[in-house]
């Protein structure tokens, strides 16, 4: 089980801020594919991965990163702080 978090418009499209996901995925990309296969709202949120960023256990990473041992995977658009 991994805790999956969503922020900004990714959260709005999926409709929830976080959920526990039972996954067989080895990488972030595989996790995204599993989610997209679930329901159209995930497909809508992840339709263009070039506009989505990912963090594993609160560290920025990429979609090919392994998720084994991860407690938290977060998806969000490019950040707009400052």
């Amino acid at each position: 089980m991994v805790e999956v978090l969503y922020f900004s418009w990714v959260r709005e499209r999926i409709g929830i801020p976080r959920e526990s996901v039972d996954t067989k995925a080895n990488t972030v990309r595989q996790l995204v594919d599993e989610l997209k296969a679930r329901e159209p709202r995930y497909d809508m949120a992840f339709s263009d991965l070039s506009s989505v960023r990912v963090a594993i256990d609160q560290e920025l990473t990429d979609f090919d990163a392994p998720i084994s041992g991860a407690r938290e995977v977060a998806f969000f658009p490019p950040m707009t702080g400052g």
Partner: protein
Amino acid sequence: MPVRIQSNLFDIGAEIEAFQSGRTDAGAMVSFCGIVRQSEDAPLSRMLIEHYAGMTEKSIRKIELEARAKWSLVDCLIIHRFGELEPGDPIMMVATLAEHRSDAFQAAEFLMDYLKSRAPFWKKEFRTGGESWVASKESDEAALERWSE
């Protein structure tokens, strides 16, 4: 090295005063404050800032440590707000104290560039015409490249 993430309004002048007062080891202080900007074309009623609690603090600490490794700083202050903001409200501020002004200026600019696109904040604007998430700019990413030299 104070870092504060808060929803409350802050007083820029009071923060600078508290940060600098009593310090005799710094010859230069630079401060920057980002403010919610109003627009005549598409009036902004409010701004909502979302953040990733936990990662926000971690990533800002990391950015601060990088700044301290690159320049000789006496201290730095970073405040960033989240939640509901109105036009004219301060969004965030950075202040740096250094022996000399060059370190203070450069470190402040570096901190700003990194806070813009490496700290997990997202801004949503509510305008007369509707609401929308602020998109990141390519120039924000390009701004980071100059520091990697």
